[in-house]
């Protein structure tokens, strides 16, 4: 027993010592060199000192193969053109970026803040309105006419624009062309359809091939948000008032959920993995989601050439279009950032002006840009073998321009959960759709006020 104790304490001590040494040596080294640099700089003239020291742009983002990889690409382009810049791209989970940003902004400690941060579009208004003055006003710094209008709208507060629009969540109806052809449906039959028509097709496909038309998680609000966004309505109006119980499109979306379930044309799934698994396995004949889902679709390489894409179905609601959005995120620059002007210049040069960069990230990462000049580029018009030679990304670029502009307001996720909680009662038949919406509105009101 004594031996064990001895061994443990020796290990612990050696870790401590090792750690202390490993840490202290480079630290003191950088400190002394930093001091020397400062000393010599004081002797030097002003402009010499600024050119000798590298300025660092710190970025917070999530997803190793998407946002981080893209930011690395953008950073290397900018570093190649400018000598005195380096990047610190901090890799975090999405929820972690949000948590960290909230805590740091709330603590008013600007030392901990990055220069650039990625924020999901549904949450952008929450940050912009909860922490006024924390984000840099870029209204005159970028040419916003070059970006998809719906993206610019969601980062606008009091006619001031705050962010740099990044990836689009333009939606598509991605389907297995082989399965639908077996049931007798070609590309023309699936172009610009309504949800009701999709349900009819789904019944037919089920009868003829035995396959479900989509995998469907009834507790996921994604499809609901797609339907709403296609109608130009949201859970809130432009002034931020709740529009739940008096929302025509929302009512129809709820009814459509029920119709889809009652028609018995789906694979019920719970959670993301099952949902993706269903079309990766070939059990579901299509998926309706944001363009970023193509990454997961293409992961099943054995299904190459068997897919195609059509515009997302629309509601019967008169304003509804065959174009919508799900998700997507944008970059924001912190007003208190140490290198704010440099960060703005970087964003302007790469994200607001480099068409080739956007071709690279589409090819490498499948990122559909909301920078409109990029969509005319070569990578967008290239035929995609996985989608049977269709130029899917050029098509998505066309749909993107049609997406109705909405101000998402502050509480998209709160509204979403209030509605999904009451949707369950409507689907099971214990509430009418009107009652479910009224209850959801009451629940939402009590939650956010």
């Amino acid at each position: 027993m004594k031996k064990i104790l001895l061994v443990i304490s020796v290990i612990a001590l050696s870790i401590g010592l090792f750690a202390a040494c490993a840490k202290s040596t480079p630290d003191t080294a950088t400190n002394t060199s930093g001091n020397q640099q400062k000393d010599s700089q004081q002797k030097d003239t002003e402009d010499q000192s600024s050119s000798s020291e590298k300025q660092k742009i710190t970025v917070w983002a999530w997803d190793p193969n998407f946002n981080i990889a893209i930011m690395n690409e953008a950073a290397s382009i900018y570093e190649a053109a400018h000598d005195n810049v380096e990047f610190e791209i901090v890799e975090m989970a999405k929820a972690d970026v949000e948590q960290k940003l909230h805590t740091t902004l709330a603590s008013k400690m600007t030392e901990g803040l990055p220069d650039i941060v990625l924020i999901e579009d549904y949450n952008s208004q929450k940050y912009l309105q909860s922490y006024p003055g924390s984000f840099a006003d870029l209204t005159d710094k970028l040419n916003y006419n070059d970006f998809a209008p719906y993206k610019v709208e969601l980062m606008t507060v009091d006619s001031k624009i705050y962010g740099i629009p990044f990836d689009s969540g333009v939606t598509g109806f991605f389907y297995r062309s082989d399965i639908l052809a077996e049931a007798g449906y070609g590309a023309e039959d699936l172009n610009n359809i309504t949800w009701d028509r999709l349900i009819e097709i789904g019944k037919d496909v089920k009868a003829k091939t035995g396959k479900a038309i989509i995998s469907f998680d009834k507790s996921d609000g994604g499809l609901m948000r797609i339907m709403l966004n296609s109608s130009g309505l949201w859970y809130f109006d432009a002034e931020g008032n709740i529009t739940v119980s008096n929302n025509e499109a929302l009512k129809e979306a709820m009814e459509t959920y029920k119709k889809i379930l009652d028609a018995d044309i789906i694979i019920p799934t719970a959670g993301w993995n099952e949902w993706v698994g269903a079309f990766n396995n070939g059990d579901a004949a299509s998926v309706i989601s944001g363009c970023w889902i193509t990454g997961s679709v293409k992961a099943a390489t054995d299904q190459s050439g068997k897919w195609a894409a059509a515009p997302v179905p629309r509601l019967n609601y008169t304003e509804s279009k065959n174009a919508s959005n799900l998700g997507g995120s944008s970059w924001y620059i912190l007003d208190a950032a140490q290198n704010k002007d440099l960060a703005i210049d970087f964003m302007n040069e790469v994200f607001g002006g480099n068409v080739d960069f956007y071709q690279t990230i589409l090819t490498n990462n499948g990122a559909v840009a909301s920078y409109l000049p990029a969509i005319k580029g070569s990578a967008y018009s290239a035929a995609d073998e996985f989608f049977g030679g269709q130029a899917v990304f050029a098509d998505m670029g066309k749909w993107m321009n049609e997406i109705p502009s909405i101000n998402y307001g502050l509480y998209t996720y709160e509204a979403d959960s209030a509605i999904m909680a009451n949707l369950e009662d409507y689907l099971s038949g214990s509430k009418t759709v009107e009652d479910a919406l009224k209850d959801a509105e009451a629940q939402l009101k009590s939650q956010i006020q």
Partner: protein
Amino acid sequence: MKGKISIPRIFIYLFLIVASFLSIFPFFWMTTGMTNSAVDIVRGKMTFGTMFFENIRILFSEYDMALVLFNSIKVTGLTVVLCLLICSMAAYGFVMYKSKITQRLYALTMLTMMIPFAALMIPLFQIIVQFKLLNSHFALIITGASSVFIIFFFRQSFVTYPFEIIQAARVDGAGEFRIFFKIFAPSMKSTFFAAAIYAFMTSWNSYMWPLIVLQTNDKRTTTLLISYLSSAYVPQYGVIMTAIVISTLPIIIIFFAFQKQFVQGMLGSLKA
């Protein structure tokens, strides 16, 4: 009696089989997942695949798992040592020097357990920034060095210690530190082991505080890396599973190595 099958026994075994399946299954899934590609995992493949070395390669070359693991071991190791030292001495003080003031102090210390971490987070962050400890492992170690629960745990076990032994040592001229390290602590080994395992788990799994304090990729701990990997739009499940297995191993090893002491410590150190 041996070999007899009775109906209650069948039910007991049935229940145990189900229970052990439920607890072993996640580990099984984790280990098979480690050897498969992301698509296979999503498709529900449950058998061992061939992707193990590929997953390990990605984890160690692209995400620098070795450094992350070292960070975690360093922070946890130092926290555990410091935490055991500080908490055991605090508890010793509370037990051996009983007075109205120390009892009030003890009650006050216990009360702080009621404050949730979320309420402390922002002020604590401000303190750390002002001490210029942002983005340092020391900020994690110093905040983890005292745990009210472990003080409580030590105290509960220390009160059973025969006070006469301490008095005898004092009479023989031993100083208080000598009594603590030479006489008291060695006979409380199992309690220390149990507290060590608890402190290890808390520090190893801590997530929110490292997230807020650490600012660069080269400082992050295993929990932050796993969280980062899982939030991808197209998650690399094989790599995530590998990272989870690697970061679970130390806990499993420590628990199995000190299982006996852990159970003893939970029951109380001294046998009457």
